[in-house]
């Protein structure tokens, strides 16, 4: 079932590629159909998921590269379930949302988006470290494509920066993965990259540190944790709407997901030790993101920096290493996906009409586009974490979790709540309020039926999660509990064999002693 979920979009992409490029309508519908089917499958998965069990469900595994112990193994637990759900919901929306704006290269665009969906789902569902890494890197290609080919004027720079920055960070993770694998081979007596097997491995403290650091840098860039964020504004700004939506809604979650999924299992001691550092960076990110957002003149850049701020909350929640914090972090991931995705769609609506992202080019739009104003307001409030919307649930739990660790974390984190209201409302006012300022007011027609349909599920989700987040929280609670339980594991580092002993299967002596 999970494999079907992962590869259904890819099959859709293949179908799209087989269609002649002139038949744009057919291409669009095939694309939508395959991502829609994926959505249905995801919904079925959500329904069939057993909330009471904190381990992996629906697991599948097969040998892939047996010589090295690499396997194809996928599974889902409460943590990945939420992100999978988010993914399958966002992608059809992103596809439909770009029907109006992508007119050149529809075929390649649709195929790239679908391939991206496949890679993202694979990332969230992989239980084998190498498989995870494969999907993780595979995500970069279609995304960079989306930015580089359908992006704004500075797209090439943005795409290359996005690609190189995130890749540079993640290649170190590959080396770290191999190192874990080697220690595991010594301790377990078998070659494996399977997460569940590696969970039994105790890394010695020294290597735990650098392995955690390698993982953390890879994830932190993706999140992005301050000060590793500068690729994000450029990528967001230049990407086409669908790209921004997917980037913000889903790709950034890959980083936070990585923290939750791998750090507690592989490097629990280092995670516990580094938690204050992570929290510190998260708080800086929250405040910094908010402050810098406030000074932006470009709408997309503003939202990009708001992502830095909002993802800071997720990281703060994770760093609190308690149930509320982690659960809040998860909900915040989903919430940010929905609300920031919607914000980018909102900007996309404006951009489609006037081809400007500059805040100063707008003003008084609310009067011309009342329905749009309502949607924008709702999305904005969700992003500003107004109670009753999804954003509040996540931020509340995160801040509560953080506060329970240290009142200071809570106190500083709360600054973000004020800040987000300040810059979001400021931007909203500049764009929507005041006297109309647009050069071509006649272009600012209200939302079309298609656009309303695009926003409808997002708005529904905003309120649904805001008013009744239980279905999500219930499903993830057991898994988060299991994850946190790993951190309580007594440190067995002392009893560990040194990594040099009996590595590898070959009888050759060790080389390159320093």
């Amino acid at each position, binding site marked *: 079932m999970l494999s079907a979920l992962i590869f259904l979009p890819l099959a859709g992409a293949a179908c799209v590629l087989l269609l002649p490029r002139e038949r744009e309508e057919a291409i669009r519908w095939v694309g939508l159909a395959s991502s829609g089917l994926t959505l249905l499958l995801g919904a079925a998965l959500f329904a069939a998921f057993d909330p009471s069990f904190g381990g992996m469900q629906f697991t599948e595994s097969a040998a892939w590269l047996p010589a090295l112990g690499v396997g194809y193994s996928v599974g889902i637990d409460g943590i990945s379930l939420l992100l999978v759900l988010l993914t399958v919901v966002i992608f059809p929306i992103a596809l439909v949302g770009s029907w109006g704006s992508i007119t050149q290269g529809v075929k390649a665009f649709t195929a790239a988006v679908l391939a991206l969906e496949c890679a993202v789902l694979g990332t969230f569902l992989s239980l084998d470290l190498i498989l995870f890494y494969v999907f993780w890197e595979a995500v970069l290609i279609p995304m960079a494509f989306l930015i580089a080919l359908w992006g704004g004027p500075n797209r*090439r720079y943005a795409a290359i920066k996005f690609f190189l920055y995130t890749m540079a960070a993640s290649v170190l993770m590959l080396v770290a993965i191999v190192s874990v694998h080697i220690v595991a081979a010594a301790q377990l007596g078998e070659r494996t990259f399977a997460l569940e097997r590696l969970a039994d491995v105790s890394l010695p403290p020294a290597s735990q540190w650098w392995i955690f650091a390698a993982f953390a840098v890879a994830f932190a860039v993706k999140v992005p944790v301050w000060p590793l964020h500068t690729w994000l504004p450029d990528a967001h700004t230049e990407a086409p709407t669908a790209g921004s939506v997917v980037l913000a809604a889903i790709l950034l979650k890959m980083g936070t997901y990585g923290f939750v999924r791998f750090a507690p299992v592989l490097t629990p001691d280092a995670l516990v030790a580094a938690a204050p550092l992570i929290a510190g960076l998260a708080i800086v990110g929250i405040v910094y993101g908010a402050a810098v957002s406030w000074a932006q003149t470009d709408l997309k850049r503003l939202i990009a920096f708001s992502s830095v701020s909002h993802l800071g909350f997720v990281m703060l929640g994770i760093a609190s290493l308690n149930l509320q914090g982690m659960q809040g972090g998860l909900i915040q991931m989903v919430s940010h996906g929905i609300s920031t995705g919607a914000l980018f769609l909102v900007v996309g609506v404006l951009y489609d009409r006037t081809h400007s992202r500059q805040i100063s080019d707008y003003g008084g739009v609310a009067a011309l586009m009342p329905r749009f104003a309502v949607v924008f307001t709702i999305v904005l409030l969700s992003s500003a974490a107004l109670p009753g919307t999804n954003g509040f649930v996540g931020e509340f739990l995160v801040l509560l979790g953080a506060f329970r660790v240290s009142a200071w974390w809570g106190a500083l984190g709360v600054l973000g709540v004020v800040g987000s209201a300040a810059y979001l409302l400021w931007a909203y006012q500049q764009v929507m309020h005041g006297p109309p300022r647009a050069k071509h007011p006649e272009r600012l027609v209200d939302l079309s039926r298609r656009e309303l349909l695009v926003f409808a599920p997002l708005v529904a989700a905003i309120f649904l999660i805001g008013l009744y987040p239980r279905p999500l929280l219930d499903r993830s609670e057991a898994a988060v509990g299991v994850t946190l339980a790993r951190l309580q594991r007594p440190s067995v580092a002392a009893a560990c064999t040194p990594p040099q002993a009996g590595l590898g299967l070959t009888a050759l002596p060790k*080389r390159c002693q320093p």
Partner: protein
Amino acid sequence: MRAPGGLPPITTPPVEIGLILPEVIVLATALVVLVADLWVGPRRRGWLVGLSLAGLAWAAWAALSASPGVGFSGMYVRDALTCAGDLLALGATALGLLVAPGYLKRHGLDRGEYYFLVMIAGTGAMLMAASRDLLMLFLSIETLSIPLYVLAAFRRGFARSQEAGMKYFLLSTFASAFLLYGIALLYGTTGTTRMPELGARLAELPWSASGSAGAALVTIGVGFKAALVPFHAWAPDVYDGAPIPSVAFMAVIAKVGAFLALVRIFPLTLGSTAGEWTLALGVVASMTMVVGNLAALLQSSYKRMLAYSSIAHAGYLLVGVATGTAQATSAVLTYLAVYVAMGTGAFAVAVAVEREGDEADRIEDYAGLAARAPLLAAATALFMVSLAGLPPTGGFVAKFGVFAAAVEGGGPGGLALALLGVLTSVISVYYYLRVVYVIYSVGEGDPPQGVRILPCRMLGVALAVAIAAVIQVGVLPATVTSFSGRVVELFR
């Protein structure tokens, strides 16, 4: 029968034809093609390629079915490495043959000698893998190299092609002399040129300056063929100037031969004195990765960029050799298999594009290729992604195998090499993806003037094979890795 001088008769031993059957088949095919060329009309040269491919297929079959053994007074060995080398060289040769005809026809170079030389070079590479003797290795290298000089200079009357041939020839013979002197010193130290005996005697000796000097000189000679920094300088110029089909072939076949020889020399022959060379090879590998990738960064010529990229890949391959474990060696073979496909493929793409009747070697010449030749563009993109080592292509599996082996078997040095490897890979992403970007960029100025796409059926076949291989290894790597895993038996 007794000679007048009263000398005893020379009884030649029986020729162990079964061992060298694959090489013999290729050689015979080459000769048949050389002769048949005299009778085949210019329009029917396609038959020659077909004939050659049939011969290569037969040779591959022979390589797979031949039984292992040592023969020719211990000069020749047929083992897993030989078999792997045969298949790699045959694959590279087949692709090299398929890539050429369209180009040769367009430029009036369509002569049977081309195919003959390609197959002889292929034989040389096969023999390099099978050499169990340093003299044999030297002769194999020459068998590989001399045809390549000619292939580089095959575009007669073209200064750049001539220059490529000249530089290649000059520097190659220069390096060969070093190699020979190294062989002489090793021979002087141990009294033999058979590799296993030589390795065993070197291991017995406590330390010998001559053995070390000899090994260093041999490294220069073989490293030259593999284009390792600082013995690489010929490669960019030669690849830049030589006709594209030749480059597509030589970049790959030279690596196959050289790295199989390096594997034969270092882990297998000198394995017991590994401490003497791991650091040296590691440093060379680092320099190769760094210089190759950095110099490729700002190239504007597609061929030249790929030339530096091939240097960089030599660096990655050498990481595997320097690590020297069975796992690393197996990874090197997998890497070579992938490189045969993606390296040839990347150059082959350029065969189909020409600007104003000549090679289209500027990267800008490929602008908007996606719109005009979507399949060709997709193939290029795939090769670039694979060369960059990104999943889910074979390039990733190849690099992953090498780096994993280095981390696992190389200690801190191996870890450092792997880190440097992945970081330089990131740099490489820049110049590979630049090509992809140019190919797919839409609406950025007019398409370049005078650029034409010239499809060719045989080229299509070559590309299809290469694509299939790159994807196959990327998605289901076990097929290739389990095969290259057979080299483990050599280490027992």
